[in-house]
């Protein structure tokens, strides 16, 4: 039986190989209920692969993912989302030709009872500040709002763990601030955990409780934002990649 004192997500020795490339190598991590957990690393560190492995969009070559006390079958999206692990995508995880309201409703369709869906849409829209634009077509919105719609769809699915794949990419500073405020508000009001894969270091340091750093598909460091900022190995990995580019 799963209780709140156990980790919500436990990744045990997970690996993924693409031909000759080991994209993720023997990775372990634990995510506690209610925390915002950052997964960072330079380009090509294996963040996206790890994310796909956890959310069931890819199956691991070795290792396992245990979510809310249950082992998830690898490579089964449906099983992961049924268990309450819901993810967004880097590029536009919403439906352009539907209204904002219909997009959010889409999120409720598998995990919320029909009678509760309208309320859930209203609730989610309120948390994300989208109430005023429920009738607008998602495709006509500015970039920042579209990102909020993507997050809203996932939140409307009432996830136990919300997994966000680079939700801040391509946003300006005001938009980044809005998304961070919304995520903080979500955590405050729902008390649910977030797994965040993100490039924007300033934002990650600001919002995450704990951070896990990957480098070349392997574990590099873990700790609070303060610990990570002063970690020599992390600084080297990032400076190295900055020199390279």
């Amino acid at each position: 039986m799963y209780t709140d004192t156990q980790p919500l997500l436990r990744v045990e020795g997970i690996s993924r190989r693409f031909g000759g490339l080991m994209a993720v190598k023997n990775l372990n991590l634990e995510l506690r209920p209610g925390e915002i957990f950052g997964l960072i690393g330079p380009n090509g560190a294996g963040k996206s692969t790890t994310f796909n492995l956890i959310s069931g969009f890819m199956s691991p070559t070795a290792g396992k993912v245990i979510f809310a006390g249950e082992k998830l079958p690898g490579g089964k999206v449906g099983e992961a989302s049924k268990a309450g692990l819901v993810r967004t995508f880097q590029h536009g995880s919403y439906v352009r030709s539907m209204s904002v309201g219909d997009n959010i409703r889409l999120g409720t369709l598998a995990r919320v009872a029909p009678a509760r869906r309208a309320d859930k849409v209203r609730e989610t829209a309120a948390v994300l500040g989208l109430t005023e634009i429920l009738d607008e077509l998602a495709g006509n919105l500015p970039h920042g709002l579209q990102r909020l719609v993507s997050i809203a769809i996932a939140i409307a699915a009432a996830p136990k763990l919300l997994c966000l794949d680079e939700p801040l990419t391509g946003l300006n500073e005001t938009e980044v601030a809005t998304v961070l405020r919304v995520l903080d508000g979500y955590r405050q009001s729902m008390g649910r955990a977030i797994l965040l894969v993100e490039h924007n270091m300033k934002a990650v340091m600001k919002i995450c409780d704990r951070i896990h750093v990957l480098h070349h598909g392997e574990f590099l460091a873990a700790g609070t934002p303060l610990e990570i900022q002063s970690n020599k190995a992390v600084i080297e990995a990032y400076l190295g990649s900055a020199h390279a580019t």
Partner: protein
Amino acid sequence: MDKRFTLGLWLVLGGAALLLSLLIQDFYLRSILNLMAISALLATSLRFVMLMGELNFALAAFTGLGAYSAGYLSTVLGLPFGFAILLAGLITAAVSALFGAITLRAKGPYFLLIGFAFSEAMRVAYSKIDAVGGTSGMVGIYPPRAFDDWLPFVVVGTVLLLLIAFYLVEKSDFGRILFAIRENEDVARSVGIRTYLYKVIAISGACFAAGLAGGLHAFVNQVISPGDFGYLLAAFALAYVKIGGEDFFLGPIVGAVLLVALSSYALGLGGDEHFLYGGAIIIAVLLMPKGVLGMLGKLRLKAAVSNDKVSADVH
């Protein structure tokens, strides 16, 4: 469009079609009305699957399956008219569910090609099976005598009921899921929606309607042959959808009415009617990429804008 307007539009258009089906006495005009109704249903069925981003060219095969099932059930097994048509629809729905479950792992051009091939295979199969008349087809699929005067009413009424069902489904959560599958299937999957299952249900529902349309066609024509159900049937349905306007529920209906009217008119001009018909399709697709309804919408928008200008000038 608000809800009351939509409901009003349904009542007016549906009522007018039903009234026409009762009033028209001319034999030829009645056959055209039947053809329009059946074509509109087939085109709407095709568009319904297009909502999830797939072109269902197996439509021709399933219309044929409905027609042959209805014909066989009625002429060989002696089932009553209504029962034969309904059962034809259900048989078609079951077979298409199996077809969908196997083929919907493929997408886009691959799925289209499978449907195309399936339609051609079925066409050849009918011509080889003696129990359904081989190449010469089935004859004598008569509706009951009592229905003689009422046949167009029954056809238009049945088609209207199915169109309303399609409309309600499209506006429901099921419709939202189909849209999501077309544009961003991963998003739907990520929130736990079993998209594959929805696709199979969608194609089965669409083909249920195609099966009924085939059954109606069999009784309206009284004669069916393998050649009626080649891939061209699906190609024509696609033309109705594109010319009426794919983005609109009424698009395939408008397209079917216009093109069936045009083809009947062209038929009267002599042997070269397909030339005129094909030309009309090419011109319409080139000049009206959003179909007739899309163009009308654009014109209305233009008129509204110029009206605003006039009133702004006055003030």
